[in-house]
């Protein structure tokens, strides 16, 4: 209810005229871990899992966060959920500082911001029934009691496309898709406005994945949810997102509206990601040009100086190896961290990757 009041006061705010106030703001977020091994720790090495990341998510919007494994995208999700403590920077949900939230403020945050994790076989306590799992958030937040919990659990199960009588089952009796639906129902139990989907469909089979993606769309339409959709599959992220941010070893390299970034990437890394993603079409695949990217991402314990992508980048020059580019808004709603994005953009316009060009549909 407090959040509703806040929404009303926001309405009076003069920012209303320009753009809706973001629901989630992540500002210069950094998360460094101490190295696991004692030897390297003494040398002062830290794993810079996330290093200066800034983005925001508007109400009702889906921001896709893509990157390869180990790039830190899940760590960002965990910081938003206050599961890890940031080294520096701020996370604000609905104007409230997440990192400092404690006690009642934290519980309020938990009601507003929920999560669906990657592995449906791992994210449900095997010793609890489906009903207990979905009911638990309501109980701990004092939202319902006794029969009301049971009734609401039934409603939620129906909402996510399961039978209400599934409440008595154990997770082990369910398929992967059913489990992921239970995870979604559990996340919805506290009526959140925002859900972090951390690789939420990556572990699912294609046909089940499609069902869950459709369900997430449906819930967004019906409940006005916002998503932070973290993933590594570019086509899935494209399908779900309004805007997309691309991450490479702890930093954002580019973000833009979804159709913009897929059709016309400015950052060389985004280009190579797009050019490397397999497309389920033999004609496209057989004619695919040699992707420009070489090698593999370096380990986050051993980050190259200057631009982190420079060692693999076809556009890299001496400057890139010395000076890290700033992540800046080079055009309205388009942020890029590259010294030579103009050159890269021009090159990509000349040879649009086949996979990224939207085919005119008849």
């Amino acid at each position, binding site marked *: 209810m407090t959040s509703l009041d806040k929404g009303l006061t926001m309405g009076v705010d003069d920012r209303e005229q320009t753009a809706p106030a973001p629901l989630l703001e992540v500002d210069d977020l950094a998360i460094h871990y101490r190295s696991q091994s004692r030897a390297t720790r003494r040398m002062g090495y830290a794993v810079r899992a996330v290093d200066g990341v800034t983005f925001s998510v508007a109400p009702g919007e889906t921001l896709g966060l893509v990157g390869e494994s180990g790039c830190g995208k899940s760590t960002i999700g965990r910081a938003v959920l206050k599961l890890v403590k940031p080294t520096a920077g701020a996370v604000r949900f609905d104007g409230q500082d997440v990192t400092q939230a404690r006690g009642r403020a934290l519980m309020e945050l938990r009601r507003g911001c929920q999560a669906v994790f990657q592995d449906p076989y791992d994210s449900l306590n095997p010793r609890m029934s489906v009903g207990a799992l979905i009911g638990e958030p309501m109980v701990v937040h004092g939202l319902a009691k006794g029969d009301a919990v049971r009734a609401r659990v039934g409603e939620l199960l129906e909402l996510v496309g399961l039978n209400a009588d599934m409440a008595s089952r154990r997770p082990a009796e369910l398929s992967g898709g059913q489990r992921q639906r239970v995870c979604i129902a559990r996340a919805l139990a506290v009526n959140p406005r925002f859900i972090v989907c951390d690789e939420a469909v990556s572990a699912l089979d294609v*046909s089940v994945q499609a069902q869950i993606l*459709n369900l997430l769309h449906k819930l967004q339409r019906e409940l006005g949810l916002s998503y932070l959709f973290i993933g590594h599959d570019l086509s899935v992220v494209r399908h779900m997102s309004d805007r997309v941010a691309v991450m490479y070893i702890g930093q954002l390299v580019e973000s833009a509206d979804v159709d913009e970034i897929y059709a016309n990437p400015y950052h060389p890394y985004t280009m190579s990601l797009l050019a490397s993603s*397999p*497309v389920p079409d033999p004609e496209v*695949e057989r004619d695919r040009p040699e*992707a420009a990217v070489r090698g*593999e991402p370096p380990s986050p314990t051993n980050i190259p100086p200057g631009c982190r992508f420079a060692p693999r980048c076809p556009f890299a020059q001496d400057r890139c190896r010395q000076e890290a580019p700033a992540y800046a808004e080079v055009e309205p709603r388009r942020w890029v961290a590259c010294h030579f994005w103009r050159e890269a953009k021009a090159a990509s316009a000349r040879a649009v990757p086949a996979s990224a060009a939207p085919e005119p549909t008849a």
Partner: protein
Amino acid sequence: MSSDSQEPLLQVRNLRAVYDSARGPVHALNGVSFTVSPGEVLALVGESGSGKSATALSIMALIQRTSGRVTGGEVRLGGRDLLTLDERGRRAVRGSEIALVFQNPMTTLNPTRTIGAQLREVLRRHLPLDRKAADARALELLEMVEIPDARDRLKSYPHQLSGGLRQRVMIALALSCDPKLVIADEATTALDVTTQAQILRLMRRLTTESGTAMVVITHNMGVVAGLADRVAVMYAGRIVEIGEVRDIFRAPRHPYTAGLLAAIPRMDTERSKDLVTIEGRPPSLLDPKPGCPFVERCWLAMDKCAVQAPEPINPQTHSAACWADPELVRQGPRPLSPELTTTGAKELS
């Protein structure tokens, strides 16, 4: 490819296998037949539990090391039935004639020995090479799989290599004895997209150059599109459709294939808000029912489908195990009838 002009290299006929579980035998393979010609790349695609990996394990006679066993059928490699060989015979075939590339190289590579030592060992076990010749061949292999600084890498331990390099080493190991057939079981699934693209390109180049036949097991239709000459689509322990890669993608004949293709979000088509889905889930393999295994999820299901199993596929051509009119399948998936959709969406088990 030259699939029809030559005698098939691998011939799998009516293969059946079960896994034992606490709830009884799981019928993982229910009459799987296909052929692979020399130099051909056949992709086995399907979702988890469809029998892709059980097929690979049965061919390699490795399924009995899990809780499974082959209960029928034959697997002929160059005229010999691999299933009737004794363990010594099988071991001779594995590695020298058939090689495997798994999803996770770390479980296959010995963490305590250098890459060079492991390559050398495999080479000398199967080929009459002295130490020096084996060393030279090992270096050659690493260069062939495009590992930079190959000479130094021979002295590396597996954990010192990145995931992509490890998978390259696995490919080098697999190709070390010039096998006739390589089985790649989700070989690029654990890799990142940019690395995966490089490994796929490598696999494509090597099979073309060496003429090695390959069975690629994957759930990723993008990988299939890029790598395969022919595709076999598996569902509930059966091959429901087989054919040339272009035919499968352009004109699928089985409703499951059509549904699978429609369920994949794609980057090269218009972004639509909802995907066409196959509602429900695969049938239990604990007690297979008569009729088509896909009947409960099929939008073209007829009365006949529930009682009578369709004709099995003909491995030689583009064919599907389906009673429906191919023309209707080609028109693409439709939602099930309204009443069926609700039950389907609720995933009755």
